[in-house]
C-alpha cells in the first residue's frame, strides 16, 4: 500500500476578533480586515485575498521546479457556492458586487491557481460544506493509492465572514451572538455552561505526496496520512445531526478500516467541536462508542469556525502544536476534564484522528501519524 505523506503546509487563521453590530444578529467574528481591501470595486473577490495568505510564492516556485509523477490540485471551497453572494439589503463594509462573475466560480479560481503550482494532471473542487477540507483527504487517499498520483495539492479557503453567512447562522441560532456573549457565555465545546462558536476566516495549503515522491526529493515529511473516510447518516434533516452520532461513528470506523488501525491506536482527537448542543451530543456519543482511551481538543474557540477550511486547517494547527510539545485545551471549559481537555497536555504517544461535519449530512474522519 502506497504510503502518503504531508510534505508542506501553510495556514492562515486569526485569534483576533471584532464585533459586527451592523448585521441582523450582531456577533463577534475572527477575520482579516485586509481581505476586504478594494472589495467594493467589485474586481477583487475576498476569498482570493484570503487564499493569497497561504499561497507562498517560494513554495509554489519549489513545486513548479520539482515536478514528480502525476499531480492533482484540489480546491476545497466548503460552502463557497453561496457564501459571498450577500443579501442585497445590506450596505456595510462586507457589501460588494462582483463586476465579473466568472472569477467567483470556484473551479475558475482552482484552474487559475493550479497553474501557479506547475504541471497539473487534474484540477477539481469540493463543496462538501464545513466538512470539505477533511472530506478531500479521502480523495487524496484515492488518488495516491488507487490512481498512481504522486502529489496532491490541497488548497482550502472559505470566507464565512459575509452578510449571508452571519445572517444565516444567526437565524439558525448556530453562532454565539453578541447578546449571548453579554450574558457571560463564552465559546466552548463539550461544556455544561459555555457553548457555541464565532464565524472565522481561514485558509490552508497542504501538499500530500507518495513515498516515492518523498524519496525522489529527499524530503522530511511532517506527518503521514494513514487513511480517511466520509459518510452520511440516516436522517431526514440535512442540517441536523443525529443524537446517536451515527454519521461521526460511520466516518470514524471507515477511516480506521482504511488506515488498518484499531480504536485503541487513536490517542488524540481533533473534534469538529462547534459547541452547539446538537454537535456536543452527537460527537461525544460517537467518540464514546467508537474509541477507547483518548484525549480530545477543539480549535474553533480560538480561531472561530472557518467553515469549509476548518477540518484540514485545524488538523495542521494541531500537528504544529504537537511538534511544539502540547495538545491544547478546549478554551473556556468550566469543568475539569482530562478527556475533553480543560488543560493543555503533552502529546500522548499514538495516532491523531480529525473529525469534521458539514450541513447536507456529511461526516469526515482522517487519521494521521505525526512525524
Amino acid at each position: 500500500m502506497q504510503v502518503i505523506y504531508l510534505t508542506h503546509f501553510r495556514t492562515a487563521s486569526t485569534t483576533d476578533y471584532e464585533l459586527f453590530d451592523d448585521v441582523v444578529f450582531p456577533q463577534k467574528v475572527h477575520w482579516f480586515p485586509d481581505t476586504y481591501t478594494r472589495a467594493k470595486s467589485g474586481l477583487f473577490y475576498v476569498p482570493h485575498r484570503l487564499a493569497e495568505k497561504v499561497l507562498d510564492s517560494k513554495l509554489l516556485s519549489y513545486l513548479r521546479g520539482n515536478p514528480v509523477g502525476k499531480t492533482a490540485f484540489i480546491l476545497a471551497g466548503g460552502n463557497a457556492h453561496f457564501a459571498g453572494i450577500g443579501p442585497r439589503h445590506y450596505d456595510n463594509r462586507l457589501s460588494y458586487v462582483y463586476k465579473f462573475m466568472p472569477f467567483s466560480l470556484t473551479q475558475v479560481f482552482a484552474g487559475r491557481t493550479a497553474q501557479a503550482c506547475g504541471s497539473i494532471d487534474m484540477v477539481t473542487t469540493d463543496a462538501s460544506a464545513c466538512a470539505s477540507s477533511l472530506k478531500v483527504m479521502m480523495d487524496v487517499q484515492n488518488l495516491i493509492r488507487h490512481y498512481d498520483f504522486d502529489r496532491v495539492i490541497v488548497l482550502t479557503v472559505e470566507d464565512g465572514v459575509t452578510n449571508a453567512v452571519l445572517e444565516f447562522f444567526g437565524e439558525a441560532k448556530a453562532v454565539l451572538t453578541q447578546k449571548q456573549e453579554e450574558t457571560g457565555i463564552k465559546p466552548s465545546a463539550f461544556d455544561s455552561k459555555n457553548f457555541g462558536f464565532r464565524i472565522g476566516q481561514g485558509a490552508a495549503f497542504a501538499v500530500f505526496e507518495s513515498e516515492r515522491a518523498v524519496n525522489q526529493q529527499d524530503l522530511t515529511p511532517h506527518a503521514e496520512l494513514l487513511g480517511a473516510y466520509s459518510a452520511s447518516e440516516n436522517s431526514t434533516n440535512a442540517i441536523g445531526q443525529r443524537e446517536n452520532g451515527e454519521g461521526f461513528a460511520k466516518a470514524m470506523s471507515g477511516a480506521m478500516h482504511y488506515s488498518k488501525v484499531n480504536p485503541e491506536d487513536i490517542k488524540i482527537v481533533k473534534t469538529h467541536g462547534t459547541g452547539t448542543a446538537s454537535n456536543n451530543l452527537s460527537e461525544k456519543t460517537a467518540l464514546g462508542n467508537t474509541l477507547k482511551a483518548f484525549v480530545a481538543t477543539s480549535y474553533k474557540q480560538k480561531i472561530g469556525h472557518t467553515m469549509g477550511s476548518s477540518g484540514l486547517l485545524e488538523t495542521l494547527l494541531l500537528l504544529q502544536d504537537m511538534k511544539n510539545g502540547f495538545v491544547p485545551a478546549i478554551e473556556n471549559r468550566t469543568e475539569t476534564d482530562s478527556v475533553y481537555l480543560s488543560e493543555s497536555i503533552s502529546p500522548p504517544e499514538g495516532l491523531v484522528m480529525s473529525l469534521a461535519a458539514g450541513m447536507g449530512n456529511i461526516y469526515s474522519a482522517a487519521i494521521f501519524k505525526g512525524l
Partner: protein
Amino acid sequence: MNFLELLNAVAKLARPIHFETVSIIDMETKFKDIGLDSLDGLIMMMYLCELYGIEEEISKEWNPQTPQEMHDLLMAHKTREPASVEEAMKQCK
C-alpha cells in the same frame, strides 16, 4: 502619462499575487506572449475602462491582443483620463 507604465501597474494589480510578475515592454508584443492570459486581460480591461470612464457595455465586445490595440480602443471611447499612474492606482484602490 506613459501608457506602458500604466499598463504594467494595472497588470500587477490584476494578476493574483502568487503569480510571477510580467513585464510589458513594448506596444506590439501580444499579451499572450508575455504570459497574460484571457482572464488577466479581462480584469485589466475593467480597470482601464473605469479609469478612462468607459461603460462596460461598450468594452465587453473588445478583444485587444496587444497594448497598442488596447490603447487605441481606450483613446477612441474615453470620457476622462487619469492624470498620472499614481493617481490611477489610487483610484483603483
